[in-house]
């Protein structure tokens, strides 16, 4: 068992000050811990200090004005059990349920998933198509970063030194869906996943591909053929052909490149159809 000292600051300012007082690689931030604790046991260079966010007032969920704001330390299980989530943001509801089992989601958080930016995150594809914004707080004050700029690579984000994720905002309800394929339905990594959402503002679609290195990405090529809330079958077929040719669909020990390409096409069809059928979006 790794040894470290655990500190739990009472305020946001105290948490930032605590993080600033350690060399960057010697302190880790603990939200839910489901990813960090695995690393503390098995990682090569464990931190000496773990800064817990458990006392910070960020276990919140708010729907004011149709904008969903999720506090960074809210357990995913609380988000999942919100009575309005599945109707307003179906892709997010489905992506949350793709993370671990219920007893893992009792601990896991949206902030932790983003801050740790695991390469195969199931949440990132949904956040990409829903145009999520990440609210940060740090020594230089507050800032917001669009999700497509937040995660730079596997285990790499734009978070500065001693900077924390305070909340994630979803600007509007959207008809959307998240489709994935894996060997074991629960507690496994998606071989490929596809998220799709219709954006009523510009009548266009957002499509993201997950389970690919180095991280989930928007696929503009597969978005472009889709127009309007109910795209025609030939538009969907064209988008599916394009996503299957994406260069990130490479083979590894979990799936061959050929299988991944077939999956991407099938999951694209499934996600777009489910998004259209979801009736999600503005009431």
């Amino acid at each position, binding site marked *: 068992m790794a040894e470290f000292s655990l500190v739990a600051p009472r305020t946001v300012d105290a948490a930032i000050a605590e993080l600033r007082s350690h060399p960057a690689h010697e302190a880790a931030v603990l939200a839910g811990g489901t990813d960090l604790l695995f690393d503390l046991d098995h990682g090569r260079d464990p931190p000496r200090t773990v800064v*817990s966010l458990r006392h910070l007032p960020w276990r919140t969920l708010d729907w004011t004005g149709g904008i969903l704001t999720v506090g960074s330390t809210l357990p995913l299980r609380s988000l999942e059990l919100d009575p309005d989530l599945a109707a307003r943001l179906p892709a997010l509801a489905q992506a949350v349920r793709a993370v671990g089992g219920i007893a893992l989601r009792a601990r896991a958080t949206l902030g932790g998933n983003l801050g740790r930016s695991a390469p195969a995150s199931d949440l990132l594809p949904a956040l990409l198509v829903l145009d999520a914004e990440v609210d940060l707080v740090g020594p230089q004050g507050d800032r917001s970063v669009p999700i497509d700029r937040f995660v730079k690579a596997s285990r790499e984000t734009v978070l500065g030194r001693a900077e924390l994720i305070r909340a994630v905002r979803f600007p509007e309800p959207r008809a959307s869906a998240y489709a994935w394929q894996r060997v074991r339905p629960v507690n496994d990594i998606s071989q490929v996943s596809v998220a799709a959402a219709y954006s009523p503002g510009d009548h266009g679609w957002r499509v993201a591909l997950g389970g690919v290195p180095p991280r989930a990405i928007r696929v503009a090529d597969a978005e472009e053929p889709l127009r309007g809330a109910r795209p025609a079958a030939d538009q969907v077929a064209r988008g599916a052909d394009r996503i299957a040719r994406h260069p990130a669909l490479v083979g590894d020990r979990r799936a061959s490149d050929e299988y991944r390409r077939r999956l991407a096409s099938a999951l694209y069809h499934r996600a777009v159809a489910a998004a259209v059928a979801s009736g999600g979006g503005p009431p």
Partner: protein
Amino acid sequence: MTAEPASFRVNGRSVALDDVPGAERLLDTLRWRAGLKGTKEGCRTGDCGACTVLVDGRPTLSCLTLSHEAEGSAIVTVEGIEDDPVGRHVVAAFRDTAAVQCGYCTPGFVVALTGLFKERGAATPVPTLLDDLGGNLCRCTGYAAIARAVAAARERLR
């Protein structure tokens, strides 16, 4: 390493410890300090659900919970599950349907199912309950009997 005091309520009793290291897991606190060996260690990586306990009523992996993170919480382990009326029906359903082979996964299933009924209610459809139990593994692969126990528990509670 720093060791600090920590206190919880476990199965309705107060447990106050004065030297819990920051890195200690709730699973180890329960098994080795509180002497509650009903909670099992399976994988210790969050893949099997054998270590599931209720933390403030919600099924939670005790292997991925630092003990200090659960400070002040009400914890229920399988030893205390029959003090809860819902838990009593769940245990009876597992017994009546003989949904136990080696028994190692059983505490995790019983605790998780009890928590699920409390979170979602007894009207929750069986497929949803089974889906939500997907994080619990039975290494004997005795899932057919476990699925019967889930349906039987739901019937008892309705």
